[in-house]
């Protein structure tokens, strides 16, 4: 570990904290319907959309209506995408005459792009037609917006009182698309081009190397694709190597910019939360909790990678650091920051191969996802996950102040506890049960490339990534095998929607409650103690649930590596 490596992480977190403020304020203006500098262009577009679709953006919705609208839109997106993939061989825009996609691959891909996971079990250029690919891009645009709407509805449950109404889904959706997604993607593209990513429609270039071989250099609208996927925390890159490819991230500055882009909306949501509940300290407390977890976890990963593999080190091949699977331009510090960051934010873009990390280095991204990707998380969803943890933490500890626990002035009672427990246990169950089935059954076992503890890590990672709607892969697992294509598809489905309904129901119940005035008897949720308590709850709950599985995976592998045994 080097001082600049550590500083880079700390400076990054500080910059994100500063960027959270303008981003959160801007989003607050957008959703409050106040004037922004983009209004002259966008307001007519907005009106047109409402008129065209026959929507009434002023009609406020009950949580059930809001949830139904949200699910209906996602279901429609799924049906269209599933049909497009299954029928691509008879649909237009398939000049390469790509054949029918296998059923489970189609299922997996459709769920993946609707749920903002973007887990890819196929090779894009050799599997999907232009029409399908184009629709996938549309989904990359739309799927994160659902998360913002979900977030807005849940936070309104906390910030409003004595009401059944949690806002209008269509209005939230349209305003996010017009005011945030599209302008964000445009700005991102311009900056990425400036930092050296190509943006063209030129044919691939064939060059001759010094050794006389010929090489095809792929290019295209890379800057805009990268901008969309990083801003939206999708992670489904243009290139197979993802952000490690020199055109996606030509230099460290470009990679850092992409990291900023991916964190921008999630940190903005944290600040927006503080503004919406009219107490910015609440937002900062959550930000501090997330940073308090993110920094040590990333440092552990960086430390493990910098320390490297003792078995390889004795051959003096390179320095001690583990450089396998890493881009030399980035090294362990930036690679650790990027991969830890993209698993904390439910994003899934990678700058180095997780499969080649040291066991502990691979454990961190895994743990980030297993705790529910609540460290910033993708657009709004991670923030809501953190709120569910906060409800549980406040309930447990709040009893110890001798009052019915309250969070943001709302009493946390049986219904809220039931809903947040439900939202928390379903993802854990899915990861554990699918992983257990995979290592028991032949189709699951057959697709594991590395038996032993490393293989278990690969399986756990696949389901954690699916459930967390992350989309990054550990590698080493044949994820296109029907077993994994099907089960990871279900994991992505169960990881997203079973969390939506209970937490929306919780928001509905909270919105109906009267706010309890703050007094000396109220447990303050903006201080250092709450930050520690919340971080402790996330880590302890995550650790208690996954410790046995992790002990047999990465931990066993790390201890074996130290004892001189590799898998």
């Amino acid at each position, binding site marked *: 570990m080097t001082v600049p490596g550590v500083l880079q992480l700390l400076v990054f977190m500080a910059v994100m904290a500063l960027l959270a403020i303008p981003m959160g304020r801007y989003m607050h203006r957008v959703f409050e319907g106040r004037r922004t500098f983009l209004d002259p262009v966008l307001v007519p577009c907005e009106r047109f959309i409402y008129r065209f679709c026959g929507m009434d953006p002023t009609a406020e919705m009950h949580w059930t209506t809001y949830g139904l609208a949200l699910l209906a839109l996602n279901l429609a997106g799924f049906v269209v995408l599933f049909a497009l993939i299954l029928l691509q061989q008879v649909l237009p825009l398939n000049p390469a005459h790509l054949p029918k996609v296998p059923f489970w691959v189609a299922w997996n891909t459709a769920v993946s792009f609707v749920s903002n996971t973007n887990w890819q079990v196929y090779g894009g250029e050799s599997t999907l037609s232009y029409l399908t690919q184009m629709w996938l891009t549309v989904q990359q645009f739309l799927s994160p917006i659902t998360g913002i709407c979900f977030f807005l509805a849940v936070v309104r449950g906390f910030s409003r009182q004595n009401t059944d109404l949690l806002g209008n889904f269509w209005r939230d959706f349209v305003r996010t698309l017009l005011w945030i997604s599209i302008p964000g993607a445009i700005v991102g593209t311009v900056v990425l081009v400036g930092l050296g990513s190509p943006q063209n429609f030129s044919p691939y270039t064939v060059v001759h190397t010094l050794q006389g071989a010929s090489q095809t250099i792929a290019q295209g609208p890379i800057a805009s694709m990268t901008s969309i996927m990083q801003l939206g925390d999708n992670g489904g890159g243009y290139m197979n190597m993802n952000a490690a490819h020199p055109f996606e991230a030509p230099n460290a500055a470009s990679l850092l910019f992409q990291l900023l882009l991916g964190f921008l909306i999630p940190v903005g949501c944290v600040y927006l939360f503080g503004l919406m509940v009219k107490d910015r300290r609440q937002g900062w407390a959550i930000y501090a909790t997330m940073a308090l977890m993110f920094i040590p976890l990333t440092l552990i990963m960086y430390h493990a990678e910098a320390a490297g593999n003792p078995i390889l080190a004795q051959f003096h091949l390179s320095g001690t650091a583990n450089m396998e699977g890493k881009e030399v331009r980035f090294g362990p510090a930036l690679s650790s920051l990027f991969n830890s960051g993209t698993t904390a934010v439910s994003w899934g873009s990678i700058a180095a191969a997780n499969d080649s990390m040291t066991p502990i280095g691979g454990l961190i991204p895994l743990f980030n996802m297993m705790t529910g990707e609540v460290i910033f998380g993708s657009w709004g969803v991670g923030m809501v996950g953190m709120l569910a943890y906060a409800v549980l933490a406040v*309930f447990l*500890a709040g009893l*110890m102040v001798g*009052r019915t626990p309250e969070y943001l002035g709302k009493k946390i009672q049986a219904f809220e506890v039931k809903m947040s427990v439900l939202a928390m246990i379903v993802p854990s*169950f899915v990861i554990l049960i699918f992983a*257990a089935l995979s290592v028991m059954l032949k189709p699951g076992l057959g697709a594991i490339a590395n038996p*032993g503890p490393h293989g278990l890590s690969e399986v756990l990672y696949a389901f954690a990534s699916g459930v967390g709607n992350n989309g990054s892969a550990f590698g080493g697992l044949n994820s296109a095998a029907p077993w994994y294509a099907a089960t990871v598809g279900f994991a992505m489905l169960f990881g997203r929607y079973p969390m939506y309904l209970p937490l929306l129901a919780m928001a509905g119940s909270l919105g109906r409650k009267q706010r309890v005035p703050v007094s*000396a008897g109220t447990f303050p949720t903006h201080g250092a103690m709450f930050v520690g308590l919340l971080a402790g709850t996330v880590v302890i709950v995550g650790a*208690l649930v996954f410790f046995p599985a992790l002990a047999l995976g990465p931990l066993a592998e790390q*201890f074996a590596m130290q004892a001189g045994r590799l898998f």
Partner: protein
Amino acid sequence: MQTGAQATGGRNRAAGADLWNRELLGHAARDSFRKLNPRWMLHNPVMFVVEVCSALTTVDALRHLFAGNLAQFNFVGQISAWLWLTVLFANFAEAMAEGRGQAQADALRRSRTEVTAKKVVASGIQQVPGASLVKGDIVLVEAGDVIPGDGEVIAGIAAVDESAITGESAPVVREAGGDRCAVTGGTLVISDQIRVRITAGRGESFLDRMISLIEGATRQKTPNEIALAILLAGLTLIFLVVVVTLAPFARYSHATVSVTVLIALLVCLVPTTIGGLLSAIGISGMNRLLQHNVVALSGRAIEAAGDVNVIMLDKTGTLTLGNRQAVEFRPLPGVAMEELATIALLSSLSDDTPEGRSIVALARGTHGAAADPAGAEFVPFTAQTRMSGINRGAELVRKGAGDAVAEFVRSQGGEIPGELEGIIAGIARSGGTPLVVAVNDRCLGVIHLKDVVKTGIRERLASLRRAGIRTVMITGDNPLTAETIAREVGVDDFLAQATPERKMEYILSQKREGYLVAMVGDGTNDAPALAHADVAVAMNTGTMAAREAGNMIDLDSNPQKLMDIVETGKQILITRGALTTFSVANDVAKYFAILPAMFVVVYPGLQALNIMHLTSPETAILSAIIFNALIIPLLIPLALRGVTYRPVGAATLLRNNLLVYGLGGLILPFVGIKLIDLVVTALHLVQTTVR
């Protein structure tokens, strides 16, 4: 074992003091076996899981015994025994809590003997069994009779011995009309006779309700208890999945893990500590209120008491001594202090109201005045004259309200000195009551009567404020007087010239702002306000209307109790939260004991996780299970007594409790399991495989 909060428990302390009473222990021990019935266990999902696990390991142990595998039988058998003990300990805790209330219920039941009632019918008096009375019947109760049921006195006045329910031996007066008309079935009329209209049928009387509450027959779970039970069930479910999925992970890793070891891990992980003690905490909380001589008519009310953030207190009797006391004589210019004191003494010698007695005491004590009342004729206070005094020959001595005495002096041909107005206004401003003293046509001065604040009340209110509770004083005084007293007592707000409507309006306005309001009341005119308060404590001496409107009844009729009730409510919540945190924090150490023990054979590197350096996998697992079982009886006293509550701010309270129960819960099991492991190893309880 009595400490802090219970010290105010009063005369019932003796009943609760012997926590480890031999008879109680024996009864609880028998009950803990009776409670093993699975149908009973089902109400507690955590302990039900443990019971099922105990049964499974027993079967496993027997299987090893019949297979002749004695080493395995020894290990599995011991695990099984400790699992059964875990369940029994939890049952024991619940039985102990119930047993402590049972004694009181039995005493109450003895008082509910069958009585013959003298029912008033058209033809006169008819002897009927007390049980046959229905609501609306009228009965005659004479000296020596037991009142056959709850009701209202509609005619007569009587002294009633209510010791059967309150434990207080001094008889109380019950009379028709007014605020003292309610009588309770099972109490004894000592003198005179009264006619009572029965207001509750058989089985629904106050006594019946008390008995069933104490026995827990109708004990509903409180809202927070339900929420906590859901969380515990959720945790149990998660750990069930964790352990069940661990079996395939272990098999994939080529580790052999027996069912017993998996079960041991499961039992260690599920929150048995809080699961086993949860109902004991609730029951003992209700018992603690009983020790304060308060009967909560619903569990919800106890919990609401912990949440209360506004308390409404009557000024008179709660914050101040019931009576005004003379504190000062203010002579008018030209009048000697001695003369005023002597005349004031003279005017009050025959006045046996508390005010009158305090004037006598002040005159004699501070001013050494003496007077001879021989030949004097007492003039009592009337609502018309608003004065009292004596006539001694031609000497007419009067004391009373300023305008009344002024009228008297003028009628005697005297003049009112200009200074009088100023003195009267000054006393009124300071919150006191001025009494003007005059002899014939001469005004002598003013007696300053003052509300005397009860000792210690200021500190009590300050501690409530630290706990985030606002106090509101209710008084019939004018706003000026009320404000002065409010400042002196240290309440946050006051409601002056309070009428039933204003009290109710005030409560409703507080509730609209999200506050939870507690109030004490006794009179019928308090009933509307009580019905709207979240915690409504009715005085046992109060009217039936007030008692019906309240959700708690204070048998001692001591309004200051409200603060004890609030603290008990908080204590119950804190105890639950503390033990839950402790229970969950314990899991970390148990993982470090059991996981390396399970997998060290396949992955020797995992020995690094055995940070306690436990002797062998077998001793590690057994020690964790023993710790898990023993912690329950060790925490029974805490569960029954409650975590000590100190009225400090929420942040401080949380920090202290997090340190003790969170951090303590994290560290303690590491120490405990290590110590048990040393003992287990020293005693060679299980064969230890040497590595």
